[in-house]
């Protein structure tokens, strides 16, 4: 009696022994006879990682009455944890056979199975070993699985043993290993490519266990309560997975990225707290899986043939002040020709008209509108363009978007943001999260820093600012990293999901728009005949010396955007460059100082990103002129 009471306390929800204890003990013993001796069929449902099998186990337990009517006893979810406490040490993975078997049987009895008993299902996430995944598992999956499984099946005598293995795809496996590393506060670093046939090898090892008669492998999330029931031969029983309430959401690319960046500042206890918060906060879709962090060389390409995902997304990302308006005008004009070559072009104007654009992290104070609405709108615009292309007979799986805001909108004011275009990664990651292309390639146009800051400054004055140029020019010498193209290129190339970066110098446009456009389109695999296109080659006219002088005096008095635009248009018309000359900002000596400041950085840029061009192209104004001449080789460098 005493021992029965003790056992009952171990069983969740078990009836407490009070006045009617004796009568109940008799009934209990009566039922227990049905499970004495060997179980006809033991089905061990095991998974890696444990999470899914727990959910399936819980779902089966929730329908245990219906299964019991069919002669099936299910032990899973929370019950297995209690059974584990009774005899199975998850740490040592050793089974006290007697205790464990008894605990399992006691749980089974409660389900009041009607004879004849056909099967006992043991649904446990720990049957392959309970240790966290490690990088070595890309070579050998669950190295201790045989020992653990052997102990388990020996603890429950059965005439026939089936093991159902729910295993991840290679891609998911990398995601798990990576997330586990992040949870331990480690940078995932480089992982080895998963060996082919890892799951089959594990199945073979399990099958080699004497007492195991058969192994069923369900790979990449195939396991559901329904197909497990089918494995048991219990047809027509609908079992749904319960939505998990309050459970920590799965890692995604964004939460893993944040956890990785935060980890160095935290101790172990703080890390758990912060990671849990990040996973909950960043659970909202759209998102990509954490394994996207890994380079494509490591990460196996998922075969997405037959799906409607974009195969290659080409992003021409500017930067600003590198003739982007001219390029976009040409691409817009030539979009039919591009479509005929299999490239769907989405014009910047479509994107910038989206009503919730300001949710995009390209903007300094993003998040003021709904990101989900922005995501819907952008996806909708791209899908619409693709549908139009498909209706016209084009494949529609290669998409080109030209938008310099992809590197982040420039913030107005007399300062240089550091690092160079600080929102570039976030802006592009948002676009990739939304569009989920199989592959993304970036096209970056660079410009020598002295003319770049002049042009950026004029843009600010056009926009209504009135600070003197010297304020910005002085900052260049204090913080040259604010204009480092090598740093920007390296950061762009590290964006998860980006497979290639093509860099071209803006100065080549002086050779002609056609050649410049050809350089840009080469990596897309398309060409355009500029002579057949209609677009404005000089889209953003500059200020003259006098126009600048007047703008600096007037702008501080302008309050609204309309006023600023009106003044800008007036100054351009009344004081054109042709009449009083282009505004000159840098004297020759300061210009050369700036050129010298970036000489080494630019040399590295040309050597690594544009090896077909002279490495000293940005060393002097004279060497830059060489870029405007036709090059012997037109093949752009790819990083």
């Amino acid at each position, binding site marked *: 009696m005493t021992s029965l009471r003790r056992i009952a306390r171990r069983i969740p929800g078990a009836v407490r022994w009070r006045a009617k204890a004796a009568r109940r003990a008799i009934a209990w013993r009566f039922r227990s006879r049905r499970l004495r001796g060997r179980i006809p069929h033991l089905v061990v449902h095991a998974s890696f990682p444990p999470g899914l099998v727990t959910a399936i186990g819980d779902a089966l337990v929730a329908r245990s009455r219906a299964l019991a009517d069919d002669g099936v006893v299910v032990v899973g979810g929370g019950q297995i944890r209690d059974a584990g406490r009774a005899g199975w040490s998850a740490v040592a993975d050793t089974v006290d056979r007697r205790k464990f078997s008894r605990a399992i049987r006691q749980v089974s009895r409660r389900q009041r199975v009607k004879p004849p008993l056909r099967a006992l299902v043991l649904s446990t996430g720990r049957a392959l070993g309970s240790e966290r995944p490690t990088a070595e598992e890309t070579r050998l999956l669950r190295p201790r699985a045989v020992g653990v499984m052997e102990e388990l099946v020996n603890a429950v005598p059965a005439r026939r043993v089936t093991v159902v293995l729910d295993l991840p795809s290679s891609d998911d496996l990398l995601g798990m290993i990576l997330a586990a590393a992040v949870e331990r506060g480690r940078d995932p670093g480089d992982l080895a490519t998963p060996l082919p046939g890892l799951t089959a090898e594990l199945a073979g090892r399990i099958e080699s266990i004497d007492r195991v008669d058969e192994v069923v492998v369900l790979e990449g999330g195939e396991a559901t309560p329904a197909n497990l029931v089918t494995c048991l031969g219990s047809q027509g029983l609908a079992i749904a997975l319960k939505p998990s309430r309050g459970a920590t959401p799965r890692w995604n690319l*964004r*939460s893993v*990225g*944040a956890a990785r*960046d*935060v980890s*160095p*500042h*935290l101790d172990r206890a*703080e890390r758990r*707290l*912060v990671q849990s*918060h*990040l996973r909950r*906060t*960043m659970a*909202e879709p759209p998102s990509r899986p954490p394994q996207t962090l890994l380079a494509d060389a490591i990460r196996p390409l998922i075969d997405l043939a037959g799906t409607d995902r974009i195969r290659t997304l080409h992003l021409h990302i500017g930067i600003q002040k590198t003739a982007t308006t001219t390029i976009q005008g040409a691409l817009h004009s030539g979009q039919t020709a591009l479509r005929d070559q299999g490239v769907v072009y989405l014009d910047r104007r479509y994107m910038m008209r989206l009503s919730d654009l300001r*949710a995009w*992290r390209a903007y300094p104070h*993003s*998040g*003021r509108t*709904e*990101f989900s609405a922005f995501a819907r709108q952008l996806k909708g615009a791209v899908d619409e363009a693709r549908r139009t292309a498909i209706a016209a007979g084009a494949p529609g799986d290669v998409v080109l978007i030209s938008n310099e805001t992809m590197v982040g909108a420039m913030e*107005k*004011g*007399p*300062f*240089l*943001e*550091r690092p160079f275009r*600080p929102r570039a*990664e*976030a802006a592009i990651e*948002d676009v990739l999260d939304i569009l989920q292309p199989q592959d993304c390639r970036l096209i970056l146009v660079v410009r020598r820093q002295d003319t770049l800051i002049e042009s950026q400054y004029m843009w600010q004055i056009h926009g209504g*600012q*009135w*600070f003197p140029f010297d*304020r910005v020019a002085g*900052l260049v010498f*204090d*913080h040259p990293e604010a204009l480092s193209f090598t740093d920007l290129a390296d950061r762009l190339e590290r964006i998860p999901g980006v497979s290639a970066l093509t860099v071209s110098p803006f100065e080549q446009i002086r050779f002609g728009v056609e050649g410049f456009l050809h350089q840009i389109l080469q990596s897309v695999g398309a060409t355009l005949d500029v002579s057949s296109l209609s677009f404005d080659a000089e889209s953003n006219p500059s200020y003259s010396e006098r126009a600048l002088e007047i703008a600096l005096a007037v702008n501080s008095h302008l*309050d609204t955007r309309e006023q600023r635009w009106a003044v800008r248009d007036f100054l351009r018309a009344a004081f054109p460059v042709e009449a009083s000359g282009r505004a000159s900002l840098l004297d020759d000596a300061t210009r050369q100082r700036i050129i010298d400041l970036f000489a080494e950085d630019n040399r590295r840029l040309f050597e690594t990103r544009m090896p077909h061009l002279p490495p000293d192209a940005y060393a002097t104004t004279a060497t830059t002129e060489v870029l405007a001449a036709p090059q012997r080789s037109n093949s752009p460098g790819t990083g």
Partner: protein
Amino acid sequence: MSPKIVVHVGAHKTGTSLIQKYMRDKPRQLTPFGVRPISRGQTNTLIGWGEVLIEHPALLSDRIAEESADPTARYVVASHENTLGRPHLASGDHLYPEAATRVAALAGILRDHDAMVIMYLRPQAAFLESYYLQLVQQGESFTFDQWLDRVDFDRVSWSPVVEMLRNAIGPDRVAIGDFEEIRSGQEPFLAGFFRRIDPAIDLTPRYTAKRNLSISEKGLQIALAANPHLRTADEKKQMRDFLQKHFSNAVYPRPILFSDQQRALLEDRYGAEYQDLVAPR
């Protein structure tokens, strides 16, 4: 008799939330003195970022008239830290470059009333540090050093905006407070605010709720690392609440942002001017 109209215009980061939330949470402590606050929620509509004063001055005027009509009202108090516009540190000649038109509009609204404007100040170094931490808590991810690029130390004087207020509203109708008074505790600070309105308001506030805890050094490190990954306003708010709960300066050490040299530079430059501005007149 018409009540006295009081507009508390900031500055940002000088205990405005504390004053607003005290008036919201403890109206019974104010009722005996005839203090009728206009809620911070309402001033958002009536004042906004100051542009409402210019475009729709009648909104605030009508609301003041409505409160004034109550015979028990002796003081109508509107506290709104955005009255002078945004503190633009990157451009403009002083801390509140949008203030001129807003102050003029406010002066027009208050012209026919027994009115006063209260503005609290704090020393430049503390103001800049606090303002930066607020930006980070709102989701920004630049370091203090990077943010300082936007701040011209020559243009962070409080004098222009104080002068602007005194010229437009009238020197006797502008009271300047020193946020440093908070060092003696938040209840004495609150009492000081109401004594500035009228020494006859001999209030002994009972208010211990902690307002606007700031983040610690560790909280700042976490925010700077995590913020670039945050996407929505809700995510940013959740992160702010999380950091204030678990990594506030009540639990961990405060962040040290300015170097001693930078702090000394600001003190040399603005210390005397500051003391002059906050000295009783």
